[in-house]
């Protein structure tokens, strides 16, 4: 870092004391980390809230996994299941006569062992196993597409914003507004129909060609990409618009900032002005939004995975809902929430790198 023998702390104008003071580098670094620490605190609290919510949700709501199983079994077999079976199954899924506090302690203990319980639908397979099996696919799909949509939307947004009022802008912006207004699954259905059924360019379901050996070999990876292309494309298609519009507006606003004017005055090339001055700053709010959006995106994967029968966690949740696999629902929700929180934390850390002012979001 820089020298510590900075001039005596001085005060400038402005009511914000943090801006007015000029702490030495060490303190600045501490503050930066302090911001992260505080965010960490928030996420810890959020995670705690999620865990409690996850605990309470099934207990506050009607429905009981054991009777769900029995009903489902009866439906499948067309036979009556004796009451003893119900009782025995109840015992497997926890003792309903325990009081809430005891249950909670037990629940925490389970969580600590990453024991999310046993799937009802897939008894006796543990939920954690199923979740772990599905999670990578969702992370892959959602991760790449979110980043892709962000990059594409932001990139185009910068261009539209920089040329605000130009023909490009006046076509691109309303068009994007329309495109991002089309219901996502509808687009996905159409895409599936056109590119999957009619043209046959892409597979209709699944995550990869199961005939191939899994692992880091070229055919397998190619197949993963081939299978993921259509879901990914539709996600990007309907998600980039939001970023574009946000970024456009931020760019339009940022471009009027004096520092962009000054950058132009300095005679910098246009690309440099756009990238390092306008876009770099305009991106910051988008970036906060990016972090915020992750929660929605992971949730949104549900629709994608349903349309494309993609083997991810969204589909898992969808299925567990349909089959009333309560432990699975809880497990998936918890994992999704924690993953979202983690993603947010990562985004926040990146934000600290991107914005030296570590503005606390309002």
């Amino acid at each position, binding site marked *: 870092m820089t020298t510590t023998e900075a001039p005596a702390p001085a005060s400038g104008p402005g009511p914000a004391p943090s801006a007015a003071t000029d702490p030495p580098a060490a303190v600045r670094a501490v503050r930066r980390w302090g911001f992260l620490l505080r965010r960490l605190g928030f996420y810890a609290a959020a995670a705690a809230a999620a865990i409690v919510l996850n605990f309470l949700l099934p207990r506050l709501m009607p*429905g009981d996994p054991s009777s769900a*199983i*029995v*009903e*489902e*079994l*009866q*439906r*499948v*077999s*067309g*036979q*009556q*299941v*004796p009451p*003893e*079976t119900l*009782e*025995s*199954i109840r*015992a*497997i899924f926890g003792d309903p006569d325990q009081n809430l506090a005891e249950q909670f302690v037990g629940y925490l203990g389970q969580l600590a062992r990453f024991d999310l319980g046993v*799937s*009802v*639908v*897939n*008894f*006796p*397979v543990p939920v954690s196993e*199923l979740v772990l*099996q*599905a999670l990578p696919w969702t992370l892959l799909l959602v991760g790449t597409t979110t980043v892709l949509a962000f990059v594409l939307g932001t990139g185009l947004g910068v261009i539209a914003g920089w040329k605000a009022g130009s023909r490009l802008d006046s076509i691109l912006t309303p068009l994007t507004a329309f495109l991002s207004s089309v219901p996502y699954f509808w687009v996905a259905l159409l895409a*599936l129909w056109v590119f*999957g*059924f009619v043209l*046959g360019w*892409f*597979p*209709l*379901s*699944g*995550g*990869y*060609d*199961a*005939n191939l050996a*899994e692992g880091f070999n070229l055919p397998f990876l190619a*197949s993963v990409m*081939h*299978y993921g292309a259509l879901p990914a494309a539709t996600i990007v298609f309907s998600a980039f618009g939001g970023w574009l519009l946000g970024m456009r507006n931020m760019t339009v606003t940022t471009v009027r900032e004096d520092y962009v004017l000054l950058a132009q005055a300095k005679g910098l090339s246009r690309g440099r002005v756009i990238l390092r001055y306008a876009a770099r700053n305009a991106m910051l709010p988008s970036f906060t939004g990016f972090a915020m959006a992750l929660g929605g995106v992971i949730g949104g994967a549900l629709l994608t*995975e349903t349309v494309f*029968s993609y*083997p*991810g966690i969204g*589909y*898992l949740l969808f*299925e567990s809902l*349909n*089959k*009333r696999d309560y432990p699975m629902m809880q497990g998936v929700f918890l994992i999704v929430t924690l993953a979202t929180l983690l993603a947010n934390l990562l985004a926040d850390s990146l934000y600290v790198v991107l914005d030296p002012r570590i503005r606390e979001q309002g």
Partner: protein
Amino acid sequence: GGSSSGDGTAGGRDDTMIYGKTDGGTTFVHNYNVVGPAIDKAPNMELVYEPLMRIDYSNGAVVEPWLAESWEFDDAGTTLTVHLRDGVTFSDGEPFTADDAVFSLNLPIEQPEFSIAGVTYEKADKVDDLTFTVTFAEPSFATLKQFANILLPMVPEHVWADQDLNTWTNPEPIGTGPFTLGEFKPQQVTLAARDDYWGGELPMSTYKIIPTSADAAKAQLLRGDIDIAQGSWANGEQEYTAKDPEHNLYQLYPNGGAMSAMFNAGRPPFDDVHVRRALAMTMDRSAITTTLQRPGTEAGPTGLNATVYADWVDPELAEPWPIDAEAAKAELADGGWTVEDGALVKDGESYRPSILFNNDWDWGSYADILINGWRDSLGIEVKPAGQPTAGFYDAMNLGDFDLAAASTGGAGVYGVYSFLDGDFVVPVGESATLNQGRWSNPEADEIIAAMESTDDEAELKELGLRMQELVVDEVPFSPLYDNFYFVEINAKRWSGWPTPDNFDHIPFVGMGPDLILTMLDLEPAEG
């Protein structure tokens, strides 16, 4: 699998049969704990684990031998002696003996949480290596079909005896079936054919199951990516069969049951038979089958499919009821009911019934058809009450409905009607697992009891006729349209499929023995 899934296998495509499973989600779970209370298990586990018997839907849904070669009840109908087929081996080479059968049959008795097949016997005892007895508390001639349930499979005692079934997922299944587990991937399961299967040698060496969706499966069938799939395909004749009548087979096998309107006799107004009759008389069944694009499959009032139960159905009651608004109005009048402002009124009480249906079956539009029919012919406004699967069953079980669209049916005449037993009736608000319509009738109870205690076919037929009459008269439920096993086949690779006109077994995946029989008949198609 997509376009490329057809190629790529080392053994060559011709040696493989591919099933596109549409109801198993996007991934399979490696779980061959076949007796556990899991709803989803590893796909086609019935090709690995077999039951003792099978039900023959080509012939009145009678019980036929499978692993059991023969059996006989004692006169009381409380002891069943079963003789096992000789020469059956597990895929690990061990012979299948009465020990295994007894172990398998006693599993649900000893551990109730695994009693998922609804067994009614009390215990099983070995007699000799190939013989064992099953003991019942009551005369149980009619309950034989439970041994045909694939949820009651025969498992090897030498493998299963020392497993904790509450945690064991049986990763390497060993059964008597024609297949062993080849490779399990969440997105594709490969089964390998045994060469020492008791039933004979299969024409294919591998059988693949890939997860797909209903829509995708259709495209995959059209492209020939998969050989078989199942699920209804409205207008399948034009959209599938017509495109290649020789190879594209869309087959409907009646399963003997029907989609029915279940009346809740546990509360007014459907506790009154006049109301039940009136509504049953004004159901626009043909409108439903028209929109289903299955004209002519309206169900008769008995609930017994006329094809499957050809020998059993009362010919006079076989025809579906036409809409008869006048008769229906007369019924209402008989019961002292009037219709006011869309509501049913009697004794100053007015009722606005609703019809419960399962949203996940997308039944709303059919409910609308019924509702329109009732409105047009009787002036009654019935409200639609769709629920997702879970809520649907909750409402059904608790008796929290007026009318419900539910499937009826079962193996044999007894199987179809047994749920109407008055023993199952519980008050509205308590969960009933059977007879959710809470209908009870002393005569019906008597007939059902009688069916359980005889295996004399003539007597059974007689009882069946009485029961049919009663059901048509009392209308505890009113069948709407026949239920089918829907099978789609692309016969480009494999030929020799049965057809609905001429079949001994249904090529329906999930009906273990039937599928095995089908497979045994197949041969690689030319060119």
